[in-house]
């Protein structure tokens, strides 16, 4: 962390510690709310900014957390600590159910449904007798630890901010761990995530539940600080205020939760002071002002405040990679040299009237490099998509290491030891090169959410980082490990994808046009690398247009044209084949 960033952090913490001595109780109460909202916003930052999921229903989750503990402590006379468990459990259960219902659908269905159930939950709060209907529940006890009570404003202040600080620290740790990287990879599409043996749906669900649980925690704090809950603060309007906080702060930035919460709460406070002077409907005008502010923000500064500040600060130097014990290699199923690693039998894929792959059969033997060539549009990419499980064939079977994988999803095939690169490079441009490669290590490592958040994964992380750097060095990008992947040239991005595929320690690598857009020297590096891999016994399927590159590298070639296999054999044979010349090299005269 650069010195100036560290200084800013120290100042902020000193300010927060000293605040009760500097300000009156009104300001401290305001700060309490900022902390409580920041907690709920933190959940949204993970959900929206990091995971790419949007929810207007976060306030409803806060409400569930608040009502759960309020009901238990105020009407049943229970302890707030049991109330805490109840709050978290309730939000987690509701989030799981709602998430399971909506997270399989495309992006906009989730936020749309959050509006609907946000309203439904709000009406439920207001209409249930056990929750005091619209008059709410009062008489909620303050939080106590032994003899220590957090009843007073100042005591509550320290309690809220310490809890918030801890939550932020855990989230920060989580994002810098195996599961956190997987969450960060969610933004930008499923194809990549699934190709890394990550279950995108479960990962989304996990983030959604995590966001909900943080909202539940916020609700718990709210109930025991405010000592009263009613339905009003948990409607959809509150939900969008939380979203506004997350976006003002900066999508994807953990500190953004606090900054966004502070800015929005302060503006709201000022509006509440100023607006009544103009109209008796000040609450409504406040909503109008917020609506307009929101629109302007999204049109003019979608990055949020934290990113603006970050741009002014020096970019942190990448953390050095330390030597660490090597990760254990993956258990490779031994395939006898002449047995096929992959076999495609009579694969057919139709898109409407188009037959993209028409009855194609071929085998890939252990330890060979197979070139798959054919004119653009011949069906090579579709074939690769069938092999990697992105698409399912209409008929035919595909076996990988003897197992039928025809109907398996991508992630299961990836988990079985197949790694791939994409014709249209799929990287996470806002992650560093080394983090991108570490995504490839997902199936080789095991740290869970809790392990990551509590930093119990450091040994494995060190090994993983070391391994990732080794793979980067192999493709000649060792010096760039701390750069953002989006800053690389196209050729380097392709090499980065190869490094990511290598990191998975696969049995079979599928490379889709790895040399496209590469400069001559980069092609040479890649060619040497692939030759080296073959010498190590790696099996590779290569789609490529550069004939020189293919001919000099591969053991065998399969030619496809119009979705059908045209020829198969050694490079020299293929080169001499008249049909191939006609189809591939352009014989129209």
């Amino acid at each position, binding site marked *: 962390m650069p010195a100036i960033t560290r200084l800013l952090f120290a100042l902020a913490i000193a300010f927060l510690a000293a605040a009760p001595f500097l300000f009156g109780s009104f300001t401290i109460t305001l700060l309490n709310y900022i902390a409580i909202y920041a907690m709920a916003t933190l959940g949204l930052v993970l959900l929206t900014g990091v995971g*790419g999921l*949007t929810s*207007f229903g976060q306030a409803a989750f806060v409400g569930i957390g608040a009502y759960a503990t309020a009901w238990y402590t105020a009407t049943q006379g229970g302890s707030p600590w049991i109330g805490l468990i109840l709050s978290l459990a309730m939000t987690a259960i509701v989030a799981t*159910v*709602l998430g*399971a*219902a*909506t997270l*399989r*659908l*495309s*992006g*906009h*269905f989730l*936020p*749309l*449904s959050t*509006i*609907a*159930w946000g*309203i*439904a939950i709000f*009406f*439920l709060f207001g*209409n249930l007798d056990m929750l005091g209907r619209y008059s709410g529940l009062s008489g909620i006890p303050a939080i106590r630890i032994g003899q220590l009570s957090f009843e007073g404003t100042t005591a509550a202040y320290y309690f809220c901010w310490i809890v918030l600080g801890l939550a932020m620290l855990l989230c920060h740790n989580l994002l810098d761990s195996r599961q956190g990287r997987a969450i960060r990879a*969610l*933004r*930008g*599409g*499923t194809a990549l995530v699934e190709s890394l043996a990550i279950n*995108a749906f479960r990962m989304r669900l996990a983030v959604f539940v995590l966001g909900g649980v943080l909202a539940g925690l916020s609700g718990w704090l709210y109930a025991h600080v405010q000592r009263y809950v009613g339905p009003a603060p948990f409607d959809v309007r509150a939900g*969008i205020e939380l*979203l*506004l906080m997350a*976006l003002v702060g900066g*999508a*994807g930035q953990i500190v953004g939760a606090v900054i966004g919460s502070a800015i929005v709460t302060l503006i709201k406070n000022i509006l509440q002071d100023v607006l009544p002077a103009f*109209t008796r*409907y000040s609450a*409504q*005008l*406040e*909503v*109008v002002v*917020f*609506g*307009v502010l*929101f*629109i302007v923000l*999204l*049109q003019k*500064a*979608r*990055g949020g405040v934290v*990113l603006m500040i970050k*741009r002014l600060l020096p970019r942190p130097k990448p953390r050095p990679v330390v030597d660490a014990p090597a990760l254990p290699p993956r258990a490779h199923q031994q395939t006898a040299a002449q047995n096929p690693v992959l076999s495609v039998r009579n694969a057919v894929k139709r898109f409407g009237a188009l037959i993209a792959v028409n009855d194609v059969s071929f085998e890939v033997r252990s330890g060979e490099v197979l070139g798959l060539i054919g004119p653009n549009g011949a069906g090579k990419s579709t074939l690769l998509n069938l092999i990697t499980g992105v698409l399912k064939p209409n008929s035919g079977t595909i076996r990988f290491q003897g197992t039928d994988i025809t109907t398996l999803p991508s992630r299961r095939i990836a988990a079985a030891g197949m790694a791939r690169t994409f014709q249209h490079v799929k990287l996470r*441009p*806002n992650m560093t090169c080394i983090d991108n490669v570490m995504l490839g290590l997902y199936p080789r490592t095991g740290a869970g959410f809790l392990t990551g958040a509590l930093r119990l994964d450091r040994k494995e992380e060190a090994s993983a980082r070391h391994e990732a750097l080794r793979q980067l060095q192999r493709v000649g990008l060792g010096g760039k490990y701390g750069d*953002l992947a*989006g800053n690389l040239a196209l050729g380097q991005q392709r090499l980065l994808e190869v490094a990511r595929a290598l990191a998975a320690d696969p049995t079979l690598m599928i490379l889709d046009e790895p040399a496209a857009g590469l400069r001559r020297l980069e092609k040479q590096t890649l060619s040497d690398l692939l030759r080296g891999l073959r010498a190590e016994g790696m099996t590779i399927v290569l789609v490529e247009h550069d004939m020189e590159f293919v001919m000099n590298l591969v053991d065998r070639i399969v030619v496809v044209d119009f979705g059908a296999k045209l020829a198969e054999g050694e490079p020299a044979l293929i080169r001499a084949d008249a049909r191939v010349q006609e189809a591939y090299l352009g014989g129209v005269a």
Partner: protein
Amino acid sequence: MTWEIALLLVQDGISTGAIYVLVALGIVLIFLVTRVIFVPFGDVVGYAALTLAALQLGQMPGTVWLVLTLAAIATVMEVVSLARQGDAHRIPRALLFYAVLPILPAAVVYFASMHALPMWLATLLTVAVVLPISPLLYRIAFRPLADASVLVLLIVAVAVHFAMSGLALLYFGPEGFRTEPMTRAFFDLGALTISGQSILIVVSSALFSFLLYLVFERTLIGKALRATAVNRVGARLVGILPSTTGATAFLIASLLAAISGILIGPIATLYYDSGFLIGLKAFVGAIIGGLVSYPATAVGAILVGIFESFASFWDSALKEVIVFSSLIPILVWQSFTSHTGVEEEIEEDESEGQA
């Protein structure tokens, strides 16, 4: 529950559902053409109903101020952006579309509201003054974000809804209104009595749905709208300007909203925020249609109407809870039937690149 009650509920549900059909068709139209999930659409419906109510009471509807404000903002935005691009010669045209055309009906309504108006004129003026609202909102809030993801557009839409509903309270106050029915006729069908208003609603809904179908099938602009929905890049390649089809979609939708508002006014007491709930229920219908299919959307909207009618019979306090919770099984069903699933639509936010 007896058969008579069930039949009564179905009949009631169909007429509410018929209104949801029009609203839902507008929502789907806007979404397919512009990718905007227009959450404030229900508010526009509410504005239409309250405008008619105000005119019937001989009051000046606040909608006039809304239209004037929006027209002023949109005109400034358009003129500034044209001047910046060096397209000064297009400014007169912009003034016509963004200033003159919206202000005209607003001015007429302003002066007409001082007199007692016949029903047909009040209805016509309501349509005229509500018509510019959606296209102006499109210009102000959404067009500057044409390249943004569906999610960003959705967030903006929700923000617009909040502004609109806040303004509605300022303009119309917290009281509820119910407009005069257009017909007081009743028809007896055996055990069932059907009100003329219900029949009017169902017939109007069917008529305007059919008109929409004709526009899509028979007119060039209709084809252009469909083309934009089917393939945005393809549409640009034949010279269709996305902002033109966008504005057209919003305009047609605005018409549907105005009609829906006028139809629902006599059968329900509407408050400044009722429109939003109407809009959301139409959304439930649109989601049943997967936000893609017009016929499925219409069926979905009718189903929502019937379901709501039964829900309010079972427990009127929890009516909204029941209706909105029904979305969850619908979405589960959708997630197992839809083939698209989560695709590469979560776009990377460019502005983050400089982090």
